[in-house]
């Protein structure tokens, strides 16, 4: 099929994008909110520290941004690689 190489480029661009998004996903939740919280304890937020804020508010907000960014970027990639509907 003629569009095979095209699809490969599309797929690796997708994998790259997913990897970047999932690294951020892991850093804010497992990192900032839990395991790296002691490192952020110096940054005070409303009577506690930044890690607590990430655990109860920040991670969810970042997740939201990630999903919309991914959807926007992928729908653009679909068009660039001619695999959109």
């Amino acid at each position, binding site marked *: 099929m003629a569009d095979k190489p095209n*699809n490969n480029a599309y797929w690796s661009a*997708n994998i790259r994008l997913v990897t970047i998004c999932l690294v951020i996903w892991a850093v804010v939740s497992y990192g900032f909110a*839990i395991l790296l919280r002691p490192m952020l304890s110096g940054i005070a*937020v409303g009577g*506690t520290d930044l890690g607590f804020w990430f*655990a109860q508010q920040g991670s969810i907000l970042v*997740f939201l941004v990630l*999903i919309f960014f991914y959807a926007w970027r992928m729908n653009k990639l679909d068009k660039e690689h001619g695999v959109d*509907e």
Partner: protein
Amino acid sequence: MDQTTLNIIVVGLSFCLYFGIAIWARAGSTSEFYAAGRGVNPVINGMATAADWMSAASFISMAGLIAFVGYSNSTFLMGWTGGYVLMAMLLAPYLRKFGKYTVPEFIGDRYYSTAARMVAVVALIVISVTYVIGQMTGAGVAFSRFLEVDVTTGLYIASATVFVYAVLGGMKGITYTQVAQYVVLIIAYTIPAIFISLQLTGNPIPGLGLFSNMAPGTAGAGTPLLVTLDGLVTDLGFNQYTTGSSPWLMALFTLSLMIGTAGLPHVIIRFFTVPKVADARWSAGWALVFIALLYLTAPAVGAMARLNIMTTMWPNGVEGEAVAVDDLPDWFETWQVTGLLGVEDKNGDGLIQYYNESGAGMAELAAERGWAGNELITFNRDILVLANPEIANLPGWVIALIAAGGLAAALSTAAGLLLAISSAISHDLIKSTLNPNISEKGELLAARISMAGAIVLATYLGLNPPGFAAQTVALAFGLAAASLFPTLMMGIFSKRMNSAGATWGMLAGLISTSLYLFAYLGVFFIPGTAWLTSDQYLFGIPPTHFGPIGAVLNFAVAFLVSRATAAPPEHIQELVESVRIPRGAGAAMNK
């Protein structure tokens, strides 16, 4: 008008709305029954997904879990939202492209194996049945409290209600009912939260109020709310609210909830209802927007309710006298009737001392002040959100709204789960395996009958509940994480994964996780059948945290077995290629 009448009116109106929608949008074909004819707008689907997803555990139990534990239970907040990132990027768009009706159907086709499909059916049924228990108990509690019937009767009413509209509606009816239920539940959840946040901090947005200073006129005015709360709870011997221990276990549990969320079949099938792959991506984002409205509010609800309970029990501060038995607010009496709240004046001083008996230094303090033990002897965490408007002295219609919201949350999720169960039975078992020649009409009937059977089973399990609603649900996550998620993901991201690898991998994940759960929590959670105790955890891992370990076993077994056996045939590799690109999803629409 008394409170019960008001509750019955508001709940009754919301039910009329659901029944009306169910009749208007009843399913006429299997495509409508299983996938709402694939014509649902992505924003609407996002809203339905939020209701489908936010269960009795999210609505009723989660704020209570956070309130009484604090920071450590942030795992629920991150776990139950972070899973959507995985679902949006690793599963939903591709499974929508595949364009069939059920999760086991994808597994059966991708792994060209009826055996794999049957293992997936078993996994789906175990997960969904475990999950539905929490919905039934949650609905039972809400009915019993607000409509003044006992929990068993409440459970029967809940079952009968779900029966009517799940059997009639199918996916199409369920979708639009869920949209209405989302509106009811989010209003019910946020209105009391906004009132309480204003009372305590003067900030109308609860998520911001949580990090604000106490409002003038409240105890601790001018200091941050979390500092005030930390001070009160530690003075009474409880753990500090904003800190926790064992970060690695927290991370593991969060991971278990995230992977589990992404692998829940009743949520995945919601993405089959949108017209295109691009819609599935947007829809996942919208789902999380609607979910986040509740999840960003829940931690504030938890912390503020805890603070309100503390100041109710200690109106003169911790140094002063505790609340007198005669001065207990009215909601204490209404909740004591349900048996979920109980006080006992152990030292006979006419006051109710609420503190943590086993806290450091508390025995000395109790001896000094003449306390004879904690006198708030029962406080079921599940009642916290339901009692919240009463705790904060909000008007009667807000209390009625909470009743309607709690029921909307439980019923919308129950309907989604029952659909996943019944479509697995009627489509994967009957249509594809037992009786492939069944007519369209026959399959619809089979779907409705299997739904009825699932409701009977769920009711029985709801009458013998294994624990708090949220914990019951947490177990379903371990199983979803260990069985379905890895298999679905490998089906999309690895062309080399074959039938034998996937089947053995799924079995490894499912069996190891089930055994680990049953060993500590009882065979099918039946009390007294556990054969290991909590001091015998493998590497200190509690059964609710086992999901990621099961997932790793699944991946590892699948990889090893697939490398030792032949690669999948050419047409399967082409199938994987086609699932990876969006073009053509619309064409698969009416299959």
